[in-house]
């Protein structure tokens, strides 16, 4: 039921929305979130952000969290796409789509999935700044708190 992909290529929100909903008339609402590379990090302008993942383990982790969301909310389908490699400001990073008969389930599942993806998913990020320096991003407290709102870790 879940579509999971980790890829270097870009994705298209409209196309993924169509793939999830096409030919169905039992869906009441589809919530989505697209995460994009911002042009600054901690107030400093960046050139790019490079995402690294653990091929195999990352996809498994994404599948498990999608299953957990489907078990917790009454979903009719969900899509989790995540890009890896070097991305410039303005480029898409991550897409979540959640379809459900009722809007609250779609909204809650989407928020849950993106909170998890942005904090607990097996990715590592390196930021390259305009001054030529680069650094790996540390795990962030504020994001961990966001996940904790959902109960299970």
């Amino acid at each position, binding site marked *: 039921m879940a579509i999971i992909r980790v890829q270097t290529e870009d994705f298209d929100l409209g196309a993924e929305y169509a793939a999830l909903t096409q030919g169905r008339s039992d869906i009441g609402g589809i919530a989505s979130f697209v*995460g994009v590379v911002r042009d600054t990090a901690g107030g400093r302008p960046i050139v790019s952000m490079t*995402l*690294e993942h*653990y091929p*195999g*383990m990352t996809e*498994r982790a994404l599948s498990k969290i999608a299953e957990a969301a489907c078990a917790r909310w009454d979903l009719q389908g969900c899509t989790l796409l*995540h890009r890896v490699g070097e991305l410039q400001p303005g480029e898409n*990073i*991550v897409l979540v789509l959640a379809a459900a008969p009722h809007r609250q389930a779609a909204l809650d599942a989407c928020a849950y999935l993106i909170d*998890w*993806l*942005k*904090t*607990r*998913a*097996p*990715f*590592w*990020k*390196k930021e390259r700044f305009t001054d030529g320096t680069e650094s*790996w*991003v*540390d*795990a*962030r407290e504020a*994001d961990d708190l966001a996940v904790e709102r959902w109960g299970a870790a």
Partner: protein
Amino acid sequence: MKVLYFAWLRERVGLGEEDLTLPPDITDVAGLVAWLRTRSPGHEAAFAHGKLVRCAVNQDFALPDATVTDRDEVAFFPPVTGG
């Protein structure tokens, strides 16, 4: 045994992956780490901040006392930062 390194551990070790024969007296993650640290200054630098190193055995998160065998895939990486 296949050992994988990610992010700054990969950069410090200088390798993303290595195929190793596990010495027979090593049976857990903690023992594996102690042995890996002796392999090069890069390995030593990678594991110097043990608090910041996470491990997976066969793609499941594993603690230092987790069992490892020569047929396992063991990965070391920093705490995940998410996407």
